[in-house]
């Protein structure tokens, strides 16, 4: 799967995107896995109330199922307009 990061999530993790292979599961499980990868990830995902998720460019909740071909994006609540 491809992971994308935007705004301060991107800055905390220190990259725009990355490829990753994880067992199929839901978004919450992916976040738990990412938090185990190091302090940058742990910091970015410390407060999940401040994190929003899109799978294949649709807003989803933390319980959304994800698979190996999905594009998963993490970002703060949006502030456009």
């Amino acid at each position, binding site marked *: 799967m491809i992971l994308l990061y935007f705004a301060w999530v991107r800055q905390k993790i220190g990259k725009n995107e990355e490829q990753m292979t994880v067992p199929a599961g839901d978004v919450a499980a992916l976040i738990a896995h990412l938090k185990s990868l190091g302090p940058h990830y742990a910091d970015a995902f410390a407060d999940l109330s401040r994190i929003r998720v899109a799978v294949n460019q649709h807003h989803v909740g933390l319980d959304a199922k994800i698979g190996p071909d999905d594009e998963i994006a993490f970002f703060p609540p949006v*502030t*456009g307009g």
Partner: protein
Amino acid sequence: MKIGIRIQREDFDLNKEVTALAGDGESGAVASFTGHVRKEKDLSTLTLEHYPHMTEAEIARLVTEAGNRWPLTGVTVVHRVGPLKPGERIVLVAVASQHRHAAFAACEFLMDYLKTHAPFWKEEARGSDHHWVEHRAGDDEAAKRWDPSTGSG
């Protein structure tokens, strides 16, 4: 329904956009909204980041929803990205209809949903300090007005 959705760094010409929507005489009413960078103490630059492709896709979904709710003849959404100065325009939503109340309602609906759904993020530069603008809870409340399941719409 004519639909135009553009994400761009350049400014836009509101007069041209509205003429393109309604200059053919098919719709009698165009409601437009432009959002501008407000002048604030120390604010030097507002920089907009977005999620390419999802932005356009999400806005297209919102426009489709607006077209389902109201009888519209055209919608144009232009959203700028990159660095902007105080006074500059950020966004245009223009909605054409044969009925002015439909045009107003759909324009306001689109702005409320754009603020809560379209993947844009604003970073403010004040002097040497940079920080990300926080999402406003009031924007969520505004969007909920349109959701019949909340009972307040």
